[in-house]
């Protein structure tokens, strides 16, 4: 009986130490790790469950235990006392068993509650882990997206710079082309003017050549006509002379 009590005390001491160590560890972890927030009542926190589990260890062991019938007296008084206690024990047996039953019910209800809470805590931990995983995935994705956005932004910036450069170049090229076109137009205009002048000069010379040829032809025609007229006159004179001679001969 004494050793049993000692054991209980040892267990209680170890349990208190374990709790203190757990508290220290928890406070140390909080400093470095961000723990998920405890529920408002603290019932689902690991510490609470640990407390509950420790208490349930005690209740599991002690819910049907009754205090032993002992006496600190000696002698007769002691025997009387023990006798009375035994009689009282028998008389209060129904009450005791009711209490034991109640203890049992409470203990088991608490065990089940603890188990439910543990499952819930596990589920919560699972969910938390899933959430953490999801969060990490999302975070990674977000980081990836940010990286991509950064890359895209760099590309866009590069493209914008290129476009700006190209625009500047095209502006310069356009300006250059405009200048070249204007110069070419000016040159063409000059060339055209020169060709026009050459063509005019060529036409002038051609017309002059035609004019000279025409005047030559006109002179030749005039001389030919006059030669023909002279021959006709000569023929007429010959004819008249012959006619006169014939008339003279007849006369």
């Amino acid at each position: 009986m004494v050793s049993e009590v000692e054991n209980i005390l040892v267990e209680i001491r170890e349990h208190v130490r374990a709790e203190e160590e757990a508290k220290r560890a928890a406070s140390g972890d909080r400093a470095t790790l961000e723990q998920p927030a405890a529920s408002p009542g603290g019932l689902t926190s690991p510490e609470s469950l640990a407390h509950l589990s420790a208490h349930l260890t005690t209740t599991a062991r002690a819910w049907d235990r009754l205090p032993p019938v002992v006496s600190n007296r000696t002698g007769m008084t002691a025997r009387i006392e023990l006798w009375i206690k035994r009689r009282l024990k028998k008389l209060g047996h129904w009450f005791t068993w009711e209490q034991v039953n109640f203890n049992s019910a409470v203990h088991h209800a608490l065990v089940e509650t603890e188990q439910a809470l543990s499952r819930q805590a596990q589920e919560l931990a699972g969910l938390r882990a899933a959430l953490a995983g999801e969060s990490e995935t999302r975070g990674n994705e977000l980081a990836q997206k940010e990286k991509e956005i950064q890359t895209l932004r760099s590309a866009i910036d590069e493209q914008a710079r290129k476009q700006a450069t190209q625009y500047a170049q095209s502006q310069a090229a356009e300006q250059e082309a405009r200048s070249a076109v204007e110069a070419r137009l000016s040159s063409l205009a000059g060339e055209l003017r020169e060709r026009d002048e050459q063509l005019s000069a060529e036409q002038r010379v051609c017309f002059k050549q035609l004019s000279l040829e025409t005047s030559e032809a006109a002179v030749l025609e005039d001389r030919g006509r006059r030669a023909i007229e002279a021959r006709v006159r000569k023929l007429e004179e010959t004819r008249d002379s012959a006619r006169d001679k014939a008339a003279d001969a007849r006369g």
Partner: protein
Amino acid sequence: MAGQKNDLYARAGIADVGDFYRHKFVSDEVLDARYFKALDRFDLRFARTMWVFDNIRAGSDVLDLGCGAGMLALLKRKGVTLTGIDLSPECARAARRNGYDATLTTTLSNLPFSDASFDYVVSLDVLGHVGFEEKDAVLGEIKRVLRPGGVTMHGIECIDRNAQKNYEEMDADELRRFVEIDGHVGLEEEQEHAARFRRFFKHVAWESRYALCLSSEEFLKQADQYGLNYFERDFLDYLRGLSFKERRAFDMAMGYVFNKISDLNVQLPKSGLYVFLKASQATLGSFYNEHRDRRALYSPNETAGELACLDRNAAVTFDDGWYEPNFLPPVARWMGKCGRIRFASSSLSSIALDLTTHLPDLRDHPLRLDVLLNGEQVSSFMLFRHSWLNLHLPVPTPLNLAAGGKFELEIRADRTWRPRPASDEARDDRELSIAVCNIEIRSEPPAVAGG
């Protein structure tokens, strides 16, 4: 020929015969009789023309079959009415420009003239281009359009079957190369041509020509293109090395001999190259010089009183510093580094002329020109642009009085250029400076002072 299926042309890959002849025979050369220099009668280029010229009656009607650019334009000096027909409209236009009275684009086998329209029907280098299946139709048409007593004269390319293959013996490639040279699809031997004419005309006479005298170009063409091996290789190499002026001198010498052979009526052996042929229903006169009268070649053109244009005047001498007239337009003569013009005029008060140059880089290097009259400098100037310049030169009275009616106008240029590269097929290495035309002289009496 156009429009008719000619198997040899087709086999030679010539689809458009008119176009083929346009590329072969259209030129801008000036054949206008008014620009003909008397000395050109010795040029072998005009040897065939001179044969016709000496065989036609002045004032007659002449039809030139296949007139080309107008090789018979010189006949206008004899006052003939000259009509030309050709396959190519461009050739017809060129002949018209060179003085033909009328030119038409038509085929030889369907002449658009009524019967008995011409005193002479002439062709030079044409019947060798008429396919065998068409020759009789052409001769029939010639006979139809000739007047009674009319004469037909032809210069015909021939073939020497001992030296060259028949058309039937040539493979496709040989035929293509042969026809592409000149378009000859109807070459026959000399006696075969004569025999064909005898079927249509009572009187036919023919003479082999070009057995001795060929132009420098023709020597090279016969050797290089037709593959004739009559000629010595070193002689051909010598001809290849001749300059433009040397070639002209060679051709003049050859032409002189050619004319003398005609004048002396020397019978030449068969040449296998060419034949002169005359045919008529009437009795033929002499083969050469039947109507020889060359006065028109020398007599000066009549000109108008105080104004005369020297360009077309036969009495004016353009020395060797000038090249033959070219149709630029206008018709103008190119000059080398120095050219002289000799002419006679009772009095001379001014000279006017138009000149131009095609010299490159004229702006940077103007062309210096000096004009001298009877050795006295009358003008000097720099030409710095490509355009026609009208130059008017008053003649100092003392110079006019001292000339005694004889003048020599000399133009000197300080540089020349060669318009064609030395590698040019035409081997034209002429050195040119300026082109001149419309050279007018005025002989106005000196103005009275205070008048």
